[in-house]
């Protein structure tokens, strides 16, 4: 054990003397801090934007109150009044922004048909979302493996190339001990940094201190161990430094870029999503067709769904709000199957990723991070569902005014339902992912051990 610590001590001295490694480590540390800063500012900005929506709603209400001082038909309000369905970020979202920049985090709603409003997008700069987020998850998933590669690619080969390996081995210590001590030193350094950055991010982002603290830290540790395992395997091949560097970068490229890109293609082919365009075309056709159909026909269809309003009087004249909102709702009903199909398609795509991420540890880890932060596709789908329910509750709120033909007064705004949704973590995905991650780590170390036994150590 004493020899082990001596080796570690000399590794430290070596490391301190190597300017290149020192710069690499410091760069990674700064990248991590920038990632934390970026993630928290981005989430703060989203929170501010969400808070500003309340102001917009209030302004809209004030405007309508001024426009209709004595109240008016609720139909006018339903048409001109806008409110928002909002997807608040989870406190963990700043660590892993996931798809929160691509998918809108609020939806502007009126009482009109939902399906023409649900998919409107936020102002997004396509170049920015294409380049992706520089958040802590990116630093951990992409850059930490590169740091590990930089620290470990010549772990054994450098001793050979400098001719110091025979000297080392002439001492009463074995090769496994040398590699073990070298790896341990690097692990302490990398894990220390990864855990430090994670803790800083948690404190800075003021995350809710629940089970996820333990989950996040274990994922970080296991993921780093996985890459040390890769380094261990490559070192076991006993090749020169150049070969090791190329091989490890090749593995990194394969796992973080090529396999994910191929999986993406596979999923797009396996689970195509043609529903979106079909849905958007069909809902318009049905809603606008409502103007041309006999009013009785529309109302009968609507009353079949809402028998509680059946007794209302026959509609006279060219236009009535309750008829207008009835055919708007029938537009939603007509595409309900397609809308459900669309959401199920999105879920199916996500599930495919969860099944296939055994092929790439980084994809698995990113999936876990996003699931923990509630920033993945399923939480967006939950938000869509929540917004749909909110629209239902808005309709329920306005229907009594519309069908009983009660004047909507300025006192009635306060009773209008408001929406709030906070994406919640998906622990099932986290558990499954952790399990897979642990297995990958075991596998890679087992292979390394096996190779060290099989391949004879050469000192040259």
């Amino acid at each position: 054990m004493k020899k082990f610590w001596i080796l570690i001590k000399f590794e430290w001295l070596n490391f301190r003397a190597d300017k290149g490694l020192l710069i690499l480590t410091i760069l990674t540390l700064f990248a991590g801090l920038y990632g934390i800063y970026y993630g928290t500012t981005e989430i703060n900005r989203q929170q501010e934007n969400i808070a500003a929506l309340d102001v917009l709603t209030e302004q809209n209400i004030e405007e309508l109150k001024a426009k209709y001082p004595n109240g008016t038909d609720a139909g006018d309000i339903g048409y001109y009044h806008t409110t928002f369905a909002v997807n608040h970020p989870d406190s963990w979202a700043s660590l892993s922004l996931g798809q929160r920049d691509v998918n809108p985090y609020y939806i502007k709603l009126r009482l009109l048909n939902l399906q023409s409003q649900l998919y409107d997008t936020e102002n997004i700069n396509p170049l920015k979302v294409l380049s992706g987020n520089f958040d802590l998850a990116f630093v951990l998933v992409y850059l930490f493996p590169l740091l590990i590669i930089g620290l470990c690619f010549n772990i054994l080969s450098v001793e050979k190339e400098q001719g110091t390996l025979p000297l080392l081995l002439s001492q009463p210590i074995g090769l496994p001990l040398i590699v073990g001590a070298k790896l341990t030193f690097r692990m302490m350094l990398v894990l220390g940094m990864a855990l430090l950055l994670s803790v800083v991010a948690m404190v800075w982002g003021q995350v809710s201190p629940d089970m996820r603290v333990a989950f996040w830290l274990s994922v970080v540790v296991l993921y780093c161990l996985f890459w040390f395992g890769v380094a261990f395997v490559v070192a076991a091949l006993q090749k020169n430094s150049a070969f090791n560097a190329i091989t490890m970068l090749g593995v990194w490229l394969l796992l973080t870029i090529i396999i994910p890109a191929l999986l993406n293609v596979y999923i797009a082919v396996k689970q195509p999503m043609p529903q979106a365009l079909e849905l958007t075309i069909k809902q318009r056709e049905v809603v606008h067709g409502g103007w041309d159909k006999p009013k009785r026909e529309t109302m009968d269809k609507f009353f079949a769904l809402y028998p509680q309003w059946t007794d209302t009087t026959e509609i006279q004249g060219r236009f009535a709000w309750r008829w207008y909102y009835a055919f708007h709702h029938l537009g939603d009903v007509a595409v309900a199957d397609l809308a459900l199909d669309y959401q199920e398609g999105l879920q199916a795509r996500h599930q495919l990723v969860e099944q296939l991420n055994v092929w790439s540890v980084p994809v698995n880890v990113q999936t876990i991070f996003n699931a923990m932060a509630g920033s993945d596709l399923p939480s967006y789908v939950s938000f869509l569902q929540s917004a749909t329910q909110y629209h239902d509750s808005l309709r329920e709120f306005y229907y009594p005014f519309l069908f009983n033909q009660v004047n909507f007064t300025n006192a009635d705004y306060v009773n209008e339902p408001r929406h709030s949704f906070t994406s919640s973590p998906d622990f099932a995905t986290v558990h499954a992912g952790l399990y897979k991650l642990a297995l990958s780590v075991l596998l890679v170390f087992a292979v390394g051990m096996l190779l060290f036994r099989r391949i004879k150590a050469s000192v040259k």
Partner: protein
Amino acid sequence: MIKSIAKKEFISTLRDRRFMALSIIVLLLLLAATVVGLHSYNTLQAERDAAQQTVNDQFANSEDRHPHRMAHYGSYAFRPKSSISFLDFGMDSYTGASVFMEAHKQNSANFSQAQQSSSLIRFGEMTVAFVLQMLIPLLIIFLCFGAFTQEKETGTLKILLSQGVSLRQVAWAKVAGYSKVVALVVAPAMLLASALLFGKGGFDLSGDVLVRLLLFIGSYLVYFFIFIVLSVVVSALHQRSSTALVMLLGIWILCCVIIPKASANLGATLYTTPTKAQMDADVHEEVAKGIDGHGSGQDERTEALKQELFKKYKVSSIEKLPVNFDGIRMAAGEEHSTQVYQEHFDELTDIFRKQNRISEYASFLNPYLAVRHLSMGMAGADFDHYVHFQNEAEQYRYNLAQGLNNIQTTRLKYGDKETRLSSDTWKEFQPFVYETPQAGWALTNHIVSFIALFMWLALVSLVGMQLIDKTKIA
């Protein structure tokens, strides 16, 4: 002498089995990316073509309706994929595919591919451009890192120099040899891509697509050459192969992974994007200051418009006007609201352009960004093509709404909300057709990247080679 050095590099590389294996993998990926890109292109294009055809037919065959009803019914613009975008998806997966075009309102482009994908898509997409931008440079690094260091380590460099050639000549000879090797890997894929493109377009392929393809291929050839020279220079500046390699890999990571993301993120941090909700609220406020097309309120501006018409036609009441005042008021309202929307849209794109400028200028630090922007531009999958499409859709929307307002003005009486014009009326309108702008237009949008790429070429060829002269041969 120089020719024989080049030949030696070429032949010895072909004999290197490890390099051959890597080249074959890259070539296979390149071919796979071509096929995959074409498949995805065909699927999306078919989807959008079918959708566009459907909405065009629906519009032309609509029931008898009041023209303003028709203006609210509106139409859709589905963004067609540019024909060589199967080589580089660029931003296409992150931009909306469908725009609803209706009266009074400019809508967002919805349903991007990224919104319909899990976070997996953020790891990147398998396209020809991805292989060319990221993997080929890596292959080049692997090919060239030992160019000089190996000769130094084995002591052959001194022998070589004793033959009377200069270091610079040796370097250029090596560059020539390696260029040939890279051409061998890249050419089959480029040829296949061109063949597929021509096969797709038939013989009536427009000259413009050809220009785009040539510029696309040309910028990649310059890019590869930059990496070859850079790698040879770095190799000459180092004594040991492993340090040269680590240096080159570090450059690759910085250029291809870190800087692109950091510069895009920095841009977004520096220039704040306004939310759509805030923008809509601002538009609403400004539009309310103009004429209300539906004319529920009696405001001064409507009154002024009325008086103007009375003067023009020398009448004293709306009923006596030879034109329908409803339609005229609607047209005035549309003109005003469209102007307000366009101002805000331009403001927004301006903010995005400022954000993107950081990435564009970062091309001077990073040839990868230069070629990425140029490539997206030539493939018709960059920001400017996206904005161009949105503007075309907006133009069509405005003309459609005003065309229908004009019909209301000339064919319906004032106050008539009941009359339904025959379905044939809608056939008077041409359907939305989107034409991709010219290659020259695309190139002028990327003039910064273009200059940056050639600056890099000059930098590595002149300054890099000068550095070689000064290296010590131990």
